[in-house]
């Protein structure tokens, strides 16, 4: 039983009504996520990768198809999501924000939970700011805090939606390393959305490439690097660059297709909906 995938996605489709027209964001998405795997998903913008993640996080429902997440332990919440946008609550202190997830998921077990929250705050370098409010923190600190809020719940599935996209390069590099260290230490199933191929290869065990809208899984590439990973030196290796280049070849086609569809939609000749239907 333990070889059963953590997440099973079969033929999932998602349609939105955009200005009274049906817009197909996802079509025939089929994907497995293995237990304790770090899966990265890349794709051109607007390909529906965020929609897919929101479905895994119970924020959207598929229009059709099967989406199954294996919930193993009632002691742990099924999923916790980290968003690209700023999502820490401005009306809570750092400490309250950090403990929010654990408290709300009903997995709070007194001092034991508090210890875990404190430990993660310490690791995120936020201990000294426990009583601060988010408006007193930098962007990087806020994103670390939302990481702590999600991770403190020990979710069976950690969902990250371009969490570092809004950060500057230095902060991004530091946070990537911290995330990898955390994951290597605590292990859980991670689905990580990004538009950066470097990021995907640095962090992931596998990288799934999505097609332009309507999105589907084009291919899944395994990343052979061993753990624990030292991101800085990995970045400079030839194998790393080869992988990134290969992925870019695959993705470029889709980006170009997405661009062409955008142009057509702008010209107003072809409805945005069915542009991928011919494939």
């Amino acid at each position: 039983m333990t070889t059963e995938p953590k997440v099973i996605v079969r033929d999932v489709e998602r349609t939105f009504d955009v200005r009274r027209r049906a817009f197909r964001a996802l079509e025939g998405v089929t994907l497995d996520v293995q237990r304790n795997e770090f899966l990265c998903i890349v794709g051109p913008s607007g390909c529906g990768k965020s929609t897919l993640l929101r479905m895994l996080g119970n924020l959207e429902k598929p229009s059709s198809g099967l989406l199954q997440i294996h919930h193993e332990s009632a002691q742990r919440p099924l999923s916790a999501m980290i968003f690209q946008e700023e999502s820490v609550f401005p009306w809570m202190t750092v400490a309250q924000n950090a403990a929010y997830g654990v408290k709300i998921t009903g997995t709070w077990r007194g001092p034991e939970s508090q210890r875990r929250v404190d430990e993660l705050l310490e690791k995120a370098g936020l201990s000294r700011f426990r009583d601060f409010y988010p408006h007193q923190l930098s962007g990087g600190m806020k994103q670390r805090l939302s990481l702590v809020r999600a991770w403190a719940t020990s979710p069976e599935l950690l969902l990250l939606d371009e969490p570092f996209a809004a950060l500057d390069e230095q902060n991004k590099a530091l946070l990537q390393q911290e995330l990898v260290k955390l994951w290597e230490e605590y292990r859980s199933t991670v689905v990580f959305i990004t538009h950066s191929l470097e990021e995907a290869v640095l962090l992931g065990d596998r990288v799934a490439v999505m097609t332009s809208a309507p999105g589907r899984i084009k291919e899944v590439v395994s990343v052979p690097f061993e753990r624990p990973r030292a991101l800085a030196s990995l970045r400079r290796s030839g194998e790393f660059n080869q992988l990134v280049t290969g992925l870019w070849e695959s993705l470029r086609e889709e980006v170009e297709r997405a661009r062409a569809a955008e142009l057509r939609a702008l010209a107003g000749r072809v409805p945005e909906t069915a542009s991928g239907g011919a494939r």
Partner: protein
Amino acid sequence: MKETAVRNPSVAVDLAARPASEARSKATLRQLLGPLQVLISPLVLLLVWEGAARAGWIETKFFPAPSTILAQFWTMLFTHGFWVDLGLSLQRLLIGLLMGAVPGLLLGLAMGLFRPIRIAFQPLIAALYPLPKIAILPLILLIFGLGEMSKYVIVAIGVFFLMTLNTFAGVMSIRPIYFDVAKNLGASRWQTYFTVALPGALPGILTGLRICTGLGLLLLVAAEFVGADAGIGYRIWWSWSVFWVEPMYVGLAVIAILGFAFAYLIDFAERLLFPWLRNPSR
């Protein structure tokens, strides 16, 4: 260079070669006197007024000198009637505020959170809100008579609409992502209300409260003009009917002070209870 020195004393030592303490004392003096700047224009106005009254440029039957009004104020402070008026008006204002603000808050939250309630109530509120509440005062007097209840009700009705709309706007302005966070973590309905909707709507609610005290005072005074035999509004009206203008000005001053005090109190409570509101990161 001078600017730098005042703003940043430590830089002053290097750049301006001036004793830091001198710059610092100038800075603190400015900080200390800064808030008093707001008093300049009212004081000038009062001085001009006083001078004009004494010189006989204005009719003191209508515009008595500020010093005369102040003397009248002082003597009234020692009369029983003044405190009865003040107490009654305050009681009416507070009970009316409570009667209007609490239902308004609840309806505003419900409208923000539930689509069916929003659809049901929004047109109604939008249609009734612009109606000047004073216009229904005769009706209120007819229904509730001259007793206390009519005063509570007219204040409550005005406050209710303002509070509903401001709370509603407050909920609608909450970024959807905060609800996403709660939902993703599996928060229950009530948990979402108390951890996201209510605190998220607080800026709107407090704005509502601020405007409500002003409107409440206005409606109360109007109601007391025509339908009361005590209260600050009544005292102003009474001053007119006996052609004694000084108590009228005292009444006006008391209302102004009340308005200011309420605004200050709300600001103070806000700073104490919701420090994050001073600098919301939205």
